[in-house]
């Protein structure tokens, strides 16, 4: 086997460079670091760790949030930073943000409950509704009402200083409880960086 030692390989013409052909295997040597391929470099997941009783209006989680830390839960990359319920991205890029919320225990009521994922493009001064999940529960017919819903948004984070997200919900009635647990996930926020902006 011969060894080709060059610093750069570029197409002789055009912009396409092909290595091997159909049926071939192209292998990178052990320990090689390859860059420029993109791919997922960041993934992080947070959760509400304490139950939260809705006020009947727009509510936002401002505290009692934690990065998952049980059952081999983890993150890779730099990870999100959170302050007062506002999440900041560690780097620009296309980010998939997913919000799953669990609700329960509406005392003798029928109620709709929304989960809100709000996005700011001005550093957190103002927010608009980025995504909303809907569910409803009926205490009278179900007896032990619980429900979960989900919403998601793909964000082009062009500025980590300006693009922020926060989470919460809106319940038709007070005493609707957003479920928060520290031992397992109930209401969660997941962030995955899919690629460069």
């Amino acid at each position, binding site marked *: 086997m011969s060894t080709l030692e060059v610093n750069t390989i570029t197409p002789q013409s055009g912009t396409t460079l092909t290595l091997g052909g159909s049926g071939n295997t192209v292998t990178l040597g052990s320990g090689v670091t390859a860059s420029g391929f993109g791919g997922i470099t960041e993934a992080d997941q947070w959760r509400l*760790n*304490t*139950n*939260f*009783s*809705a*006020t*009947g209006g727009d*509510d936002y*989680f*401002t*505290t*009692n949030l*934690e990065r998952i830390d049980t059952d081999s839960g983890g993150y890779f990359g730099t990870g999100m930073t959170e302050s007062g319920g506002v999440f900041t991205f560690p780097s620009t890029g296309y980010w998939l943000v997913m919000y799953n919320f669990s609700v*329960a*225990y509406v*005392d*003798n009521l029928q109620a709709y409950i929304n989960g809100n994922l709000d996005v700011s493009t001005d550093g957190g001064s103002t927010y608009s509704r980025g995504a909303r999940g809907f569910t409803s529960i009926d205490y009278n017919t179900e*007896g*032990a*009402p*619980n429900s979960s819903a989900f919403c998601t948004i793909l964000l082009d984070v062009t500025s980590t200083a300006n693009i922020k997200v926060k989470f919460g919900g809106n319940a038709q009635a*007070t*005493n609707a*409880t957003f479920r928060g647990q*520290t*031992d397992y996930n109930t209401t969660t926020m997941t962030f995955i960086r899919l690629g460069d902006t």
Partner: protein
Amino acid sequence: MRPETLEDYLVSLHTGQWFGWSDAKNKVYANLIIHDSSKTKPTEQECIDGLAQLQADYDQAITDKEARKASAKSKLEALGLTTEEIKEAFGI
């Protein structure tokens, strides 16, 4: 869901994120913290009594609900409906 924990009682006291835990992995009274200064921290005994009352209320509500079902069923049977017909029509 039957109230079972201190947290179940606390969420019934006030709305909003008025409380949390110094150690969320150990949600006992000693670790209860109050985020909202306009709210008063309940005593441990108030929490114990409050949870017991919630459980009693829940159990009573279930009992009352079952009693209403049984009453409705017996009234329907008295009208001549069969058990199968009642189940099909009313789900009880």
